[in-house]
């Protein structure tokens, strides 16, 4: 069975003083074993919430999650502990994701200690092995996070996530706080670990060039909705949803000879609190029509390429 994790009609709502915030609204997708699913979108689109809901850091408000074929949407605390050993997360900010009062060794060792499966000697050995694996010099064992640079801190975070040999990892913007030269080191490390440890990634980011580089498939999110999903190659060659098109064209390219025509969006992102039914991109979309204010469905336009837009065929002359 190739499918490792599958979300069906997943929802996550938050109650706020101003109303219900629809952070993740009716999203379905699945990720195959050993593959990387990129989730892109702008801040506030719910991509980080989706990642956290998938691994039960947040309790879902509706829909189901299947992991290795088993329904894990609602699990008891014993099951949850077991599940979490298989699903881990790498955080965005290497400054806030490490406890400033714990050394590198303590941080990486903590999951081993909690699991209760190792005695003290094994724990120390295992920690050293993980440090080698993620490329932290063993001499840095006793240093504190504030003594390390961003790249090394991120390596510690990766080490902690990989300590118990998980199968599925949510990478929540793991390189967006790093400089370009260091970012490349971490991306390469993540790819190496994926092949050596047979990991499945859900890679959440706003950076389209990074997501193109690392993902097999991509989901594009806009205000809690999944607007387009297909393989990475297909998405960059042939984006169909008007939002995806605008998003791709907005990325400034470092190639000065290929400066494409920008689609400059008008208006601002609307609020995800108590949203109206219909396409949430409608307020900024230049193709907006009456139908767009009806609920939209994710429709497979081409094999493996689904778009949630009622006018997709007209717009793209399909």
């Amino acid at each position, binding site marked *: 069975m190739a499918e490792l994790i599958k979300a069906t009609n997943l929802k996550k709502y938050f109650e706020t003083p101003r109303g219900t915030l629809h952070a993740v609204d009716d999203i379905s997708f699945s990720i195959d074993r050993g593959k990387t699913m990129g989730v892109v979108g*702008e*801040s506030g689109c719910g991509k980080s919430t989706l990642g956290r809901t998938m691994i039960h850091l947040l309790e879902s408000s509706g829909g189901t999650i299947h992991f290795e074929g088993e329904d894990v949407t609602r699990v008891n605390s014993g099951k949850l502990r077991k599940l979490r050993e298989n699903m881990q997360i790498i955080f965005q900010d290497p400054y806030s994701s490490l406890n400033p009062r714990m050394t590198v060794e303590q941080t990486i060792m903590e999951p081993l200690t909690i699991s209760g499966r190792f005695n003290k000697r094994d724990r120390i050995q295992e920690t050293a092995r993980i440090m080698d694996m993620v490329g932290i010099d063993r001499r840095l064992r006793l240093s504190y996070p504030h003594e390390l*640079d*961003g*790249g090394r801190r991120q390596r510690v975070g990766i080490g902690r996530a990989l300590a118990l040999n998980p199968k599925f990892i949510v990478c929540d913007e793991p390189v967006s706080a790093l*400089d*370009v*030269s*260091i*970012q*490349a*080191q971490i*991306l*390469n490390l993540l*790819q190496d670990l994926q092949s050596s440890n047979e990991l499945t990634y859900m890679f959440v980011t*706003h950076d*389209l*060039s*990074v997501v*193109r*580089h*690392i993902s097999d498939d991509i989901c594009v999110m806009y205000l809690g909705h999944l607007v387009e999903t297909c393989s990475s*190659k297909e998405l*960059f060659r042939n984006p169909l949803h008007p939002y995806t098109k*605008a*998003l*791709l*064209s*907005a*990325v*400034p*390219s*470092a*190639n*000065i000879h*290929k*400066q494409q025509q*920008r689609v*400059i*969006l008008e208006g*601002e*992102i609307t609020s995800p609190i108590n949203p109206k039914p219909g396409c949430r991109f409608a307020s900024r979309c230049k193709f907006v029509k009456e139908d767009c204010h009806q609920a939209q469905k994710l429709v497979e336009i081409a094999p493996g390429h689904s778009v949630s837009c009622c006018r997709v065929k007209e717009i793209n002359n399909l």
Partner: protein
Amino acid sequence: MSENDTMLSVRDLSVEYTSEGKVISAVNGVSFDLKRGRTLGLVGETGAGKTSTAKSIMRILPDISSRITAGEIYLEGKEILCLSEKEMRRIRGRKVSMIFQDPMTALNPIIKVGEQIREVIIQHNSISKKESVARAKEMLELVGISGDRYHEYPHQFSGGMKQRVVIAIALSCNPELLLADEPTTALDVTIQAQVMETIKKLKEELNTSMLLITHDLGVVASACDDVAVIYGGEIIEMGSKEVVFDNPLHPYTQGLFEALPEMEEDAERLKPIGGMPPDPSNLPKGCFFGPRCPHPGENCSTERKQLVEIEPGHFCRCGRALKMENSNG
């Protein structure tokens, strides 16, 4: 080109910080010229000295912890480092404005956005209240925000709109020089595109010169005329956008381009630059990039390199680049 074409000229600028008894050399002899109406992109990674350079030009470095140790800054041919604080205040906002990275902290949360723009206008112009309000509304319209929102507070605006208000403030007195410190880094790409478009349009309308500080080569490619790459507090490569992007000569610049995941091409693996940026409190002898350089020469670890004009208008601080260029040509 004549002297008065040059808007800003920085010569051998050096800035030091002191922290817990340690001396941190943030900027080490930076020199560049910015011509009227042009945009110079200052590219570099965290801690390379980009922001310190801009703050030196504005003369807003914190007095307690930092010091300009050497160099001169000429604004339209006039030295500004020796000016009194009073004279400087007349220049800030009117001749030179700065846009900071974080729009969330650059606005005062308890003052109406319109008032914040008006405040800058009346500081530099003696006009009536009515005129200044009208002018502030005009500025809001200019950056694409309805003038009716004059009476709203910053928290009622989204991040992109706040940044546009910041731009409106910076441009409200028609400055001749705009220092933009990572103006879009905190914003989403679609909003970034809107804001960059606004800046570009206004720059053309008002014929402003701009120093655009960024770490994003894509932003440079789309918005700048010239590029200066800064590393370890010194400029290591400089030239027009075309020469630097088409023919990067310094190994660090080359490394930056190679480490960047490309939108257009499929690369199986990225080529990171090994090692780490230099420690500004303990800079290496010789070339600052030496310890990370993929092709170090014999005297790279001992000899300080000079910025040399390798081809017309293309400067590079690497002896190897010079030799290669000679052997090629």
